């Protein structure tokens, strides 16, 4: 009758629940779980003990109607004391719950609860013994029904720790059965078998209820264990990703140093090379270096994006400048591959809400990708209006993407098999960067493709009304400029540098180191659009005077002073009269802005506003 033998060694219980479904045994759950079961048992036992004085009072009063009830009053008195004691004991249990660990709690309190249950059981048997032999049939029946009801209630709720209930069961109901022939002298042979049936049913029921409680706690613990495992796995995955990103960016940073040096050395060798036979391998070497650098940049971009270091700043952006930029960036490459690069310009006011850097990166990667995997034909860039969005499309007449590859080509380092045969420069990172950028902007991307016929990769961004944009430093490499700029500087080293810099913007530079040379350029019949004049000239002339004289000769030209001196009286006069004075060192971006006001080639005839010319 003692199915639970855990009291001997509760500490042997496994700390974590087992994988298989639990047996009806306390050991299936952890010590903490067992303590919870004990608490649940105690709660029910306590309720039962607290209720009993009321039951005892009612029964005693009923008994007093016909009999001498002294023993019954004594029984009632006992339950009042027992209930009060149980109440105090329960407070101690509560305190112990906070102080002791689960194993200790079980060790101390399980025997105490068993004892309480034992006494409680004996308590319910007591009136049967008192009444046996002289109680009326009515009272005896009431007593029997009451005891059966108490048993049923306890068999359902007191069973989390079965050994506690079993003690109550033995000293309560079962013990009272022994006295039944004296309680029901005339009918015991009817009532006793029914009572034994009740015993059997309650025994079965108590075991079922016990299994249910244990299973419940086991499930709870299993759930907690699984969620802890999940958290661990997730943390490990995140740590691995962070580790990978750190490794990538460190490696790329470190490798970049020598690669950078190699790039410069190759460039230097190419410039000095007089051997025609070396030209081809040198150019291959340069292309390879560019490819390696491109890979480093992509790797760094990807790791930066993945580690969340990229701040996304959406702003209204006009599409046309991006298209112009793509043309500048890729026209030469397209030509060198024998491809046509065509742009279908969006309307002048077309603007999207996007992060400039991310959009630029995505578009540039898409076009780069398209050019790379298109052996012949061309690439077309266009923008299409779609219900409040601009969809920017990059069409190519290239290989196309097989259906099974369409999801995977956005994963880092994935390249379809046939792509590898066409182009070995790629690293499978470009589209991965596109996907991450687009995700960061909460935009959409996708592709349509037919194998062997070509693909269309697209980005879809919400349209925006172009708002005012804060004046911030911009890269000085927008639309090409056109015109001729006369530079007056007395340092011959500097003159060569000016020529290279302006040349890279599309501006022709005429160089002069004094007024005589400057006028020689004008006399030679060259149209001068801009004059940049250093204030201090070695010839001793005042730069400003020379500028005024030159502007007088070329009224259509615009002029500005350039100077490292801050307080020359001539410069103060120049500013006073409204001439532009650039202070050295002049920010390249500022110089470009100035020249672009005067020399920017119009996009088309209708756009550039020119002020009224005097």
């Amino acid at each position, binding site marked *: 009758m003692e199915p639970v033998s855990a009291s001997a060694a509760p500490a042997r219980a496994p700390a974590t629940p087992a994988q298989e479904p639990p047996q009806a045994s306390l050991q299936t759950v952890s010590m903490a779980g067992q303590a919870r079961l004990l608490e649940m048992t105690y709660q029910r036992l306590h309720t039962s003990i607290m209720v009993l004085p009321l039951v005892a009072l009612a029964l005693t009063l009923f008994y007093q109607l016909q009999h001498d009830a002294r023993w019954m009053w004594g029984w009632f008195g006992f339950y009042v004391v027992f209930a009060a004691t149980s109440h105090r004991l329960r407070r101690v249990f509560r305190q112990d719950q906070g102080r002791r660990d689960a194993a200790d709690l079980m060790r101390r309190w399980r025997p105490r609860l068993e004892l309480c249950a034992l006494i409680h059981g004996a308590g319910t048997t007591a009136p049967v013994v008192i009444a046996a032999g002289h109680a009326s049939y009515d009272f005896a029946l009431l007593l029997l029904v009451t005891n059966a009801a108490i048993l049923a209630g306890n068999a359902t709720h007191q069973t989390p720790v079965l050994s506690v209930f079993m003690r109550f069961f033995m000293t309560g109901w079962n013990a009272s059965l022994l006295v039944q022939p004296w309680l029901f002298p005339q009918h015991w042979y009817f009532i006793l078998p029914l009572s034994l049936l009740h015993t059997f049913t309650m025994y079965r029921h108590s075991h079922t209820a016990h299994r249910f409680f244990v299973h419940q706690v086991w499930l709870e613990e299993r759930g907690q264990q699984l969620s802890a495992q999940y958290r661990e796995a997730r943390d490990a995955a995140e740590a691995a990703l962070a580790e990978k990103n750190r490794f990538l960016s460190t490696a790329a940073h470190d490798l*970049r140093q020598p690669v950078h040096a190699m790039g410069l050395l190759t460039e230097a060798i190419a410039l000095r090379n007089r051997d025609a036979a070396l030209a081809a391998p040198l150019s291959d070497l340069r292309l390879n270096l560019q490819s390696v650098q491109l890979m480093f940049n992509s790797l760094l971009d990807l790791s930066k994006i993945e580690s969340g270091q990229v701040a996304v700043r959406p702003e209204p952006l006009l599409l046309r400048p991006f298209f112009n930029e793509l043309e500048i960036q890729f026209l030469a490459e397209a030509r060198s591959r024998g491809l046509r690069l065509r742009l279908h310009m969006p309307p002048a006011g077309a603007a999207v809400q996007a992060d400039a850097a991310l959009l630029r990166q995505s578009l540039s990667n898409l076009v780069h990708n398209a050019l790379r995997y298109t052996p012949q034909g061309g690439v077309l860039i266009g923008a299409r209006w779609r219900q409040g969005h601009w969809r920017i499309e990059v069409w190519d007449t290239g290989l196309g993407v097989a259906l099974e590859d369409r999801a995977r080509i956005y994963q880092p380092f994935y390249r379809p098999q046939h792509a590898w045969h066409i182009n070995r420069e790629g690293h499978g990172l470009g589209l991965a960067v596109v996907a991450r950028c687009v995700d960061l902007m909460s935009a959409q991307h996708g592709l349509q493709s037919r194998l062997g016929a070509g693909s269309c990769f697209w980005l879809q961004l919400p349209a925006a009304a172009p708002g005012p*944009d804060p004046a911030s430093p911009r890269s000085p490499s927008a639309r090409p400029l056109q015109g001729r700029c006369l530079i007056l500087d007395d340092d011959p080293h500097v003159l060569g540098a000016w020529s290279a810099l302006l040349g890279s913007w599309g501006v022709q530079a005429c160089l002069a180191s004094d007024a005589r040379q400057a006028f020689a350029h004008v006399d030679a019949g060259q149209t001068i659009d801009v004059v940049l004049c250093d204030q201090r000239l070695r010839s001793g002339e005042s730069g400003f005077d020379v500028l005024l004289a030159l502007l007088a000769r070329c009224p259509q030209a615009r002029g500005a002073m350039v100077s490292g001196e801050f307080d020359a009286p001539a410069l103060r006069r120049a*500013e006073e009269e409204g001439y532009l004075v650039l202070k050295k060192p002049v*920010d*390249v971006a*500022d110089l470009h802005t100035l020249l672009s006001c005067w020399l920017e080639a119009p996009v088309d005839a209708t756009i*550039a506003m020119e002020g009224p010319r*005097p």
Partner: protein
Amino acid sequence: MSPSPYALVLDDHPLVARGVAEFLRSRLPRMEVAVAGRTEDVMPLVAERGAPAIALIDFWLAEGAALDLIAQLRQHCPGSALAVISGDDDPAVMERVRKAGAHGFIHKQAPPETFALAVEALLCGLAWFEPPSQSGQPPRSRDLPVTPTELGLSMRQGEILALVLQGLPNKRIALQYDLSESTVKEHMSAILLRLGARTRVEAITRLRGRRLVLPSMGEL
């Protein structure tokens, strides 16, 4: 004081230093190139050979070393162009370099063409702080239209600003609109105040990427 002009390269990575030096030699045939591998070598070199025309300094020598060196060089060689080369594309690093008084910041990942251009620009006495080409801001043409009202200017002030953008001096602006020069000057100070600029050049650079549209002329 200045014998032959030379460029100074400081990088503790010998391969990088030699690469930069070799590149400079091929790009600037008239210029000599001196290489230093340690920060301590720089000042003796400057004492011996005079101020360099340009100094290219690796940012990651040791924490803060590059910035200290720039402060020192600014004092001893006020005429030299000082630039930092860095593999770091963190805008904050660029800002620190700018604040330390350098004239330029060149990214290591910049293609050789850009690197050469930056050196040329620095030699011209220009400042070079270009964001890295890969992840920086896109270049802007003057494509975003803006009206004088949006800038907080009156119509007349807008008209005058349009001429300032054309680089015209006060006298010619006065002639254009039949005003006295002093009236133009008054308008000018109001315009500069509105745009938060101290000089005309600043006003023009504030309008970077914008195209001033005067309603009187219609959207031409």
